C-alpha cells in the first residue's frame, strides 16, 4: 500500500511546474483553434475544444451527440446515426448538416451526411462546433436546424505524428496514424484509420441481430496560404441490424459503403472572397437474408428470402462567397450550386412465391440541380448591439416525374452584450425541400411531397465570470407540412401544425487550475403527430460532467440521464475515463462507457401487420476501451 502511495505521489510531482511551464500550458489552452473559427453570432453555439476532446477521451462523434442540448444520440433500424429517428422511416435527420472543415459531408439521397458520419472516429479532429437554433445561412447551400462543424488537425499545431492503438469490449479494436509537416511554401496533414467496432448481439424470433461495424478512412490535406486541397475516403463494412424492410427478422444483414470526397478551397482579395469546389462519389451495397421469409405487403403478402441492392450517388458543389466590411455592416453574399445524381434501381429480390408483376409505374427522379443564393448583413448598431438579417433562396430543378421546388429562408438575429452579460435572440422562418429518399423510396416515397416549413424563436442568455458561466436557452417553434407517415405507410405532409417548446439551463464552474464541472438540464416538449389530439411528448435530459487534471492524470466523469422518452421512461448513462501521461509523448488511457448498463433504449418495428412487434436495444452500449498513443 505504501509503495502504491509513493508511486502515486511520484506521478503528482509534475503538478508543480515552473513559471515557464505554466506559461506554455496557458498558451496551449489560449491557442485553441476554435477561438479562430467559431462564430458566436451564427446560432446557439456549443464548442468542444481540443482540450475538451482529449480530456473527455472523445472516441467518436457519438460521444458528443449523446449529451447534445435538447437531443440525444439515436440510430435508425440499420444501425446508422439518425438523431431525429422516427422508425420505421429509415432517416429523419436530413436537416442536421455536418461539415469537415469547410466541406459539407453529404449523401445525395439523404441530403445530410450524418447517416454516414454520425459515429465517425475523432482521432483526426482538432475541435468541434455545434450550432443549434436554425444557424446562420453562410454555412451551406441548404438550410439546417443543426450544423455540426468538425475541424481536422493541421500542421499549424500538430507538426509531427501520432500512432494510436485501442482494444475494447467484444474484441473492438482501432489503429490509426497521422503525420503533419510544414514546409516553407506549403503544409500537409495525412491520416489513416482502421476501426473494428464490435457490439453486443440481440436475439429476436430465433435470429441474432448484430450492429458490428468496420470503418477504414484516409484523410489528407495539402495547403498553402491561399489554396487547400483535401481528399477524404471512407469505407464501411457494417451489419445492418433489422434492415430497412419491415415484416421479419433477417438471418444476416449487411450495409457496406464507399465514400470518396475531393474538395478545394481558395481565398482571394485578402481572404474576403472564398471559392469552394467539392465532388462526392458514394456507393452502398445492401444485402439481407431471411431464413423465415419476410412478409412484405405489396399489397398482397409475399415472402422475401433475399434482398440485394446497390445504390450509386454523386454530388458536386460549387460555391462563391464574398465578404465586405462597410461602415459597421458585415455583408456577405453567396452564390452556390449543387448537382446530385442517384440510382437506386440496381436491386434484386428472391421470393418464396413471386408476386404478380406490378402494373403501375412508380414515379421517380434521379437528378437534382440546386441553385442557391444568400445575403446576410450583420449591423453593429454600437459597441453593445448587433443586428443580423439573413435571406436565402433555393431553386430545386428535379428531372423526370418530379416538379421543381422553390424554397426560401429568413432569419433575424439580435445580440446584446455588456460586460459579462450576453443575450442572443434568433427568429427564423425556413422552408426545407424534401430530400430525394423521401420522394423516391419504394417503401414510403411520395414524389408529390411539398416543402415543410419551420418557424422558431430562440433566446439565449449567458453570464460569464472568470470561474463560472451561467447560460439559459429557451424557445418555441412550429412546423407546417411536417413529413409524416400516413396509415398506408406513405410519407405525406401533415395537415396540422406541430408545435414544440424547449428550455435549457447550464452551469460551468472552473476550479483549481484545469478542473471543470459542467451541469445541464434541458427539456423538450413537442407534439406527437402520431398521437391522438397531438399530445405533447415531454422529454428531459440531464448532464453532469467533471473534468479533473491531477498531476499526470486526466480524469473524466460524466452522467447523462434522460426521462420522458417513449421507449424508456427513465435512464442514465455513467461514463468515466483516466488518461495517464507516462511521458510527454506516451499516453495510456482507460475509458468505460455506460458502465451501469442503464442507458436509453430505442424500439424498432419488426412487424406492423397483422400485429405490432418491436425490437428494443440500448442506444449506447456498455463497453470499456484501453488505448495507447505515441507521438513522434
Amino acid at each position, binding site marked *: 500500500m505504501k509503495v502504491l502511495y509513493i508511486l502515486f505521489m511520484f506521478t503528482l510531482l509534475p503538478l508543480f511546474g515552473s513559471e515557464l511551464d505554466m506559461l506554455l500550458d496557458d498558451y496551449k489552452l489560449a491557442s485553441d483553434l476554435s477561438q479562430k473559427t467559431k462564430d458566436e453570432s451564427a446560432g446557439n453555439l456549443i464548442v468542444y475544444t481540443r482540450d475538451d476532446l482529449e480530456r473527455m477521451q472523445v472516441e467518436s462523434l457519438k460521444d458528443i451527440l449523446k449529451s447534445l442540448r435538447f437531443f440525444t444520440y439515436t440510430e435508425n433500424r440499420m444501425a446508422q446515426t439518425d438523431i431525429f429517428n422516427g422508425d420505421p422511416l429509415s432517416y429523419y435527420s436530413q436537416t442536421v448538416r455536418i461539415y469537415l472543415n469547410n466541406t459539407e459531408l453529404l449523401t445525395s439521397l439523404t441530403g445530410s451526411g450524418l447517416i454516414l458520419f454520425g459515429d465517425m472516429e475523432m482521432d483526426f479532429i482538432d475541435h468541434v462546433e455545434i450550432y443549434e437554433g436554425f444557424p446562420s445561412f453562410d454555412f451551406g447551400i441548404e438550410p439546417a436546424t443543426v450544423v455540426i462543424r468538425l475541424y481536422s488537425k493541421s500542421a499549424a499545431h500538430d507538426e509531427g505524428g501520432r500512432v494510436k492503438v485501442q482494444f475494447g469490449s467484444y474484441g473492438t479494436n482501432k489503429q490509426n496514424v497521422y503525420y503533419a509537416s510544414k514546409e516553407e511554401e506549403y503544409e500537409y496533414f495525412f491520416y489513416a484509420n482502421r476501426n473494428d467496432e464490435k457490439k453486443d448481439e440481440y436475439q429476436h424470433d430465433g435470429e441474432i441481430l448484430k450492429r458490428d461495424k468496420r470503418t477504414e478512412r484516409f484523410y489528407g490535406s495539402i495547403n498553402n496560404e491561399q489554396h487547400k486541397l483535401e481528399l477524404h475516403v471512407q469505407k464501411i463494412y457494417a451489419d445492418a441490424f433489422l434492415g430497412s424492410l419491415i415484416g421479419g427478422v433477417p438471418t444476416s444483414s449487411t450495409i457496406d459503403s464507399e465514400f470518396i470526397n475531393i474538395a478545394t478551397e481558395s481565398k482571394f482579395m485578402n481572404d474576403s472572397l472564398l471559392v469552394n469546389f467539392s465532388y462526392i462519389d458514394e456507393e452502398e451495397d445492401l444485402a439481407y437474408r431471411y431464413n423465415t421469409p419476410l412478409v412484405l405487403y405489396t399489397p398482397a403478402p409475399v415472402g422475401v428470402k433475399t434482398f440485394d441492392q446497390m445504390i450509386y450517388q454523386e454530388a458536386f458543389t460549387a460555391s462563391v462567397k464574398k465578404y465586405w*466590411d462597410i461602415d459597421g455592416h458585415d455583408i456577405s453574399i453567396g452564390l452556390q450550386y449543387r448537382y446530385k445524381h442517384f440510382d437506386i434501381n440496381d436491386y434484386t429480390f428472391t421470393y418464396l412465391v413471386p408476386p404478380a408483376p406490378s402494373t403501375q409505374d412508380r414515379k421517380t427522379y434521379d437528378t437534382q440541380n440546386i441553385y442557391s443564393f444568400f445575403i446576410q448583413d*450583420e449591423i*453593429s448598431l454600437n459597441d453593445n448591439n*448587433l443586428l443580423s438579417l439573413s435571406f436565402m433562396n433555393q431553386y430545386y430543378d428535379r428531372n423526370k416525374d418530379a416538379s421543381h421546388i422553390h424554397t426560401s429562408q429568413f432569419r433575424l438575429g439580435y445580440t446584446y452584450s455588456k460586460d459579462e452579460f450576453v443575450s442572443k435572440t434568433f427568429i427564423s422562418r425556413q422552408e426545407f425541400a424534401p430530400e430525394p429518399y423521401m420522394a423516391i423510396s419504394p417503401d414510403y416515397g411520395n414524389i408529390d411531397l411539398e416543402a415543410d416549413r419551420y418557424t422558431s424563436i430562440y433566446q439565449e442568455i449567458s453570464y460569464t465570470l472568470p470561474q463560472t458561466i451561467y447560460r439559459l436557452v429557451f424557445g418555441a417553434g412550429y412546423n407546417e407540412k411536417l413529413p409524416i407517415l400516413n396509415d398506408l405507410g406513405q410519407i405525406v405532409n401533415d395537415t396540422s401544425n406541430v408545435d414544440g417548446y424547449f428550455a435549457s439551463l447550464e452551469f460551468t464552474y472552473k476550479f483549481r487550475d484545469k478542473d471543470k464541472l459542467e451541469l445541464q438540464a434541458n427539456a423538450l416538449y413537442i407534439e406527437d403527430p402520431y398521437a391522438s389530439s397531438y399530445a405533447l411528448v415531454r422529454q428531459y435530459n440531464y448532464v453532469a460532467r467533471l473534468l479533473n487534471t491531477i498531476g499526470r492524470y486526466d480524469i473524466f466523469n460524466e452522467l447523462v440521464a434522460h426521462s420522458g422518452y417513449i421507449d424508456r421512461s427513465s435512464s442514465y448513462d455513467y461514463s468515466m475515463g483516466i488518461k495517464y501521461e507516462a511521458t510527454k509523448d506516451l499516453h495510456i488511457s482507460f475509458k468505460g462507457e455506460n458502465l451501469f448498463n442503464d442507458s436509453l433504449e430505442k424500439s424498432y418495428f419488426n412487424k406492423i401487420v397483422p400485429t405490432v412487434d418491436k425490437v428494443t436495444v440500448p442506444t449506447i452500449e456498455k463497453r470499456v476501451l484501453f488505448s495507447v498513443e505515441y507521438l513522434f
Partner: protein
Amino acid sequence: MKIFLILFLVSTIYAGDLKLASNIFEKIILAISHDTKPKIYIYTHIEAIEEYSEKFNLVNSCEDSDIVILSSVKKIPSRCSSKLLFGTRYKHLKNKKVIGAFFWQKGRPNILFYRDRLEKNNIKLDSSFDKYIENE
C-alpha cells in the same frame, strides 16, 4: 473585422494567445541576451512580437540587431548570419546557426535549445530553462 463586442470578446481571447506568446518570447529573449533591452530584428513576420512591439526593442535591419527571430530560414540575409538566430519552427534547428526555437509540434507548444550551440555563443541560461536544453 467585426466591431461588435461579442466578436470583440472572441478576438480578445485570440489576442490572449498572442499576448502569452509575446510573454514567452520576452522571457526567451531576455534569457539569451547579455543586454537588458536587446535589439530585435524580425525575419520576416512574427505576429505575437509585432502585436506587442512595445515590449521589445525592435529594429529595422539585421545590422543593428542583437537577436534575429526567424519565421523562415529561407534566404536569410547574409548580414544576419553573424547575429544570434532564434527559430519559430522545429525545422529551423536544422540550420546550425540557430541556437534554439519556440514552436508548435505534436499538438503542444515547445521550447528547445541545443547545449553545444548555446556554449558556442557563450550563452548561459538560468535554471528555469534546464528542461528545454538538449544535446544535439
